[in-house]
């Protein structure tokens, strides 16, 4: 699959999955949450893909940094305590990272 299709497709899937996972735990406005997930993932996923493709294949370290970054952004954007934001981020990234690992690495 060419990157023109692959990258936007994986980004879209990641946004949808992470949105649905966090939606299960978040009690606020769902429309805003979706916008935030689009912005957060559009920021983190291309950088993570670039680092993985061109700089390092340390999948776990990249996912760790992404999880921390997203938790900080979730805390700021959703205006929630950091513990909750970290929990949201860990849950969402655990699912998407597992799917990504099986599709692209395993």
């Amino acid at each position, binding site marked *: 699959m060419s*990157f*023109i299709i692959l*990258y936007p497709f994986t980004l879209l899937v990641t946004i949808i999955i992470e949105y649905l996972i966090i939606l299960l735990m978040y009690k606020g406005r769902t429309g805003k949450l979706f916008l*935030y997930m*689009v*912005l*957060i*993932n*559009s*920021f*983190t996923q*291309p*950088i993570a*893909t*670039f*680092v993985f493709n*061109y*700089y*390092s294949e*340390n999948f776990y*370290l*990249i996912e760790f*940094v992404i999880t921390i970054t997203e938790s900080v*952004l979730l805390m*700021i*954007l959703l205006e929630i305590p950091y513990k909750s934001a970290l929990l949201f981020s860990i849950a969402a990234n655990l699912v998407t990272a597992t799917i990504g690992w099986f599709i692209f690495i395993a």
Partner: protein
Amino acid sequence: MFFFIICIHRNVLADIMPDTRYWTEIIWCYDIINMDDYPEYTFLYQTNFGGAYTILNQENRCFYYYKFAVTSIYAIKTDTLNSKYYLPDDLGDLHNKIIRSDIKLPALGGAVRLSNPLRFRKIELKIDSIDEDSLIIFRSSVIYYYDDDSEEILPIINQDSIPEPSRSYSTTYYRERLWFILLPIGAFAGILVILVYRKRNK
């Protein structure tokens, strides 16, 4: 961030061999394009490392050699050879019958970044004249083959310089940069706009 960079940096970058994740080797060869116009001659090459002469024929007409070598082209009357494909180990008297050219052909090897679409480089040589004493060959053109199966033929005007390929980056490279650079910057700008907007309305 510094710790992150330190952790993920790969030591293989220090290796002499190009890292194949980032670099690809360029395949190359020289080709005498009008060799068939001189059926009475057999053409040979030998590198400056010495060793055997190698016969050029239809199966072996696009020739390449060790990356640090320089090659000379020779010709010999075909009827003086027992075989069109093999030379005797000891040339003996044949050595005196070899017609030498002045052309020196350096190896063209090298590697390019994967973002560079160049994959194969061929320099076409043309025999200008040949007689009992001299063989005159010149570089006629260079052909660059790219990863999208396109090719670029450039005539060689000056024998001392080979025209460079016009393409150094693939379109995929630019598209990837748009994805990897502009998208995160745009998203981050969007986040900042939301935060600024929120702060102003408080």
